[in-house]
């Protein structure tokens, strides 16, 4: 066990955990940030996606010891008031069914739009294909990414 100091959503956190504990479980079990979801534990489904210095990262395979001083952003910190362009677009197009995968989907979409505010269809497809949605909301996700792009300054 060791003490880890983490910068998450602009706040400082501390966790006393084993060094190999994935960031996902530190967030969920130790810090009470449960918006980041567990789906597979092997970086295949994307439900656990957070930003690490702005880069979409699979927190289920990222040991807490590897986080270091990186800035972590989770769905809880994506926007102050739940009104990030992707959150607005996801709501306007009523994307969720069960909703379990959507936090991860939005984190990846938000990172994509930050880099490229006008992604092509092919870029959206290439990026979003790394996520699974068991309910099959992919069409609305596609449309929501495009709508969010129009809202991104």
């Amino acid at each position: 066990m060791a003490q880890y100091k983490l910068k998450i959503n602009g706040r400082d956190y501390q966790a006393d955990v084993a060094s190999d504990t994935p960031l996902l479980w530190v967030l969920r079990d130790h810090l009470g940030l449960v918006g980041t979801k567990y789906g597979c534990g092997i970086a295949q489904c994307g439900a656990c996606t957070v930003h690490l210095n702005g880069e979409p990262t699979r927190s289920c395979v990222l040991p807490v010891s590897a986080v270091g001083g990186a800035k972590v952003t989770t769905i809880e910190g994506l926007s102050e008031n739940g009104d990030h362009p992707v959150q607005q677009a996801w709501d306007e197009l009523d994307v969720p069914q069960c909703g379990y995968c959507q936090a991860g989907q939005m984190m990846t979409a938000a990172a994509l739009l930050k880099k490229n505010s006008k992604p092509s269809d092919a870029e959206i497809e290439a990026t979003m294909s790394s996520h699974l949605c068991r309910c099959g909301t992919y069409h609305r996700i596609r449309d929501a990414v495009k709508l969010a792009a129009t809202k991104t300054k």
Partner: protein
Amino acid sequence: MQTSRRDFLKSTAFAGGGLILGFNWFESVASKPVAVTAAAPLNFNAYLSIGMDGIVTIFSPNPEIGQGIKTAFPLIVAEELDVDWKKVKVEQAPLDTTRFERQTAGGSGAIPHSWKRLRVAGATARQMLINAAAKRWGVPAAECTASQSMVIHTPSGKKLSYGELAQEAAQIAPPTDVKLKEVGSFKLIGKSIKGVDNQEVLTGKPLFGIDFYREGMRFAMLQRPPAFGLKLKSVDATAAKAMPGITDVVTFKNNVAVVGKSTWEVKKAREVLKIEWEKAAELENTADHDRIFKELMADNSKATVRRKDGDVEAAFKNAAKVVEAEYQCPFLPHNPLEPMNFFAHVREDGVELVGPTQTPQAARNDVAKLFNIAPEKVSVQLTRMGGGFGRRLRTDFALEAAELSSLIKAPVKVIWTREDDMGGGIYRPAVRYRFKAALDKDGNMIGYALRGVGMNTANSTREDNFPSGCVPNLLIDTAEHKSPITVGAWRAPITNFLAFAEQSFLDEVALAAGKDPVTFRLELLDKAKNQPTGAIKYNIDRTRKVIELAAEKSGWFKKRKGVHLGFSVYYSHASYVAQVAEVVVQKGKPVIQKVYAAVDCGVVINESGAKNQVVGGIVDGLGHAMYGNLTFKNGEPEQRNFGAYRLIRFNEIPADVEVHFVNNGIDPTGLGEPALPPTGGAAANAIFKATGQRLRNQPFVEQTDILG
């Protein structure tokens, strides 16, 4: 819904003022409204409250698994209440069998079950508010109307808000003869209404079972038998117990539970358990299943007749042409993205359960039985679910959490890893079908025979579905293999593959008869209409309507160069869905680029939610038809996570899905399942046209190179 039932209300002013309405539909009880207090045990089926601030709280009793019931139910109440939707707050109700009926997510049955009672609930409250306003104004209630949370006296234009009227309305005897709105006059129903939990879902609030946390709660993972047919022989937990954060390792039934302070710690400790398993039943392989299917298919003595019309033997003897084909699919895991999990706290005075379940009442009853206590001693709080697909109809995960909590005498949340979830499932069973059709010299289908061979499924057919009733000589029978592999309902049970097989086979028959697939189906329906054979348990006109609508919208009869269309129509869970898949060939491979769906679920409650269900059902149906495959080696599932097991992804969906609702004003039926069954058949029929290859088994990727 039986119209003979007496619908009545109970009301009370509750602490702080306002109106609580409860609804009771028991036929046998007295019809007089009974005053009750909010604290008393209420014999309600559902209830809504109106605060003096005008906020209407509608409790949604049914489990939300992504089917949108938590939005659809309140929407129906709100429509008849004429409330401003912005002033409606929706709350998930816990399991309460004294207030509610059928708190179940399954069989696409919630909407048809509750449609009328929810409307009566809203309409009755509306009338009470109108009566209260009329009394205050001293005018006849008939001169008043309601709109957007206001009661309006039409002649004078006077208005009062629901909030202002709530307290007085609570004193009014609930009318028992309220008039429901005309279907054509709905203001909310049929519109696109966003999910009531959207904001919380999209900001990562703790909504799901796996998010539940209670101070002092332990975390646990169970090591269950790794293969179907194994049982626990011995455990050495010395190393696991010595791992950091571990508080208990306990063994019960065939499980070894590792309990500790965090998910990761119990997962790591579980890995160092030393367990010996021993054989308790046959350790089956997928190859065994293939052999068993063929043996049972060939053995007439093992078959149970499900439906027999006319003389099938004679029909085949006299046939000008016989078409025969066999279809097979594998086992499938449900794979809701939120793996199984459940919280239980067994105390002296009762059991508290919290978690994702499609059947909270069954969870309560099974847990009560386990401890030999009264069901009332078990409470169940419903959480939102990260998918269900039938897996959460079972109660195994609630039972094991409860049993574990009683053994360690502490509150505990049991979490399954994805590997646990996929490897220890209650699967969609593999099944094999054999179809035979006899055609006369004019291409009329004069004989039809279907045999289904199921795994732990006594009847793997739906013997009264289309084309039963359309064929003068028909025989449907089934055989079953008893396997140690556990099976259960998987979204659209039976029909999720039967529809594919049947609709593919009908295209094979149409081809042999030299007929267009749509024309062939319509001709069969004409026979059911004009010369029916035996019982017909589907609506011929509604089936015809969705066929015609799908054909029209897809341009079925207009040939387009390089575009290949495949047709399918299926009736399941009381809804009718026809689909056309549009396939083009790119780089020599078939690509499904579009799916058209024509859907008759009666009245559409929430257009956005309904479309989401239809599109999702199509993507789900297509994904599993193309990729889904769970195989077994020595009783052990060979795919246990999303690396080896393939779920459809973003880049593999048809570019477009076009959904058309018949929206005929008939009382609504469910949509959680009915869009899925027709999809595989439409796709396979289109792929056949594009490539000449007939796909008779799933998954398609095992047989052809297909582009998503």
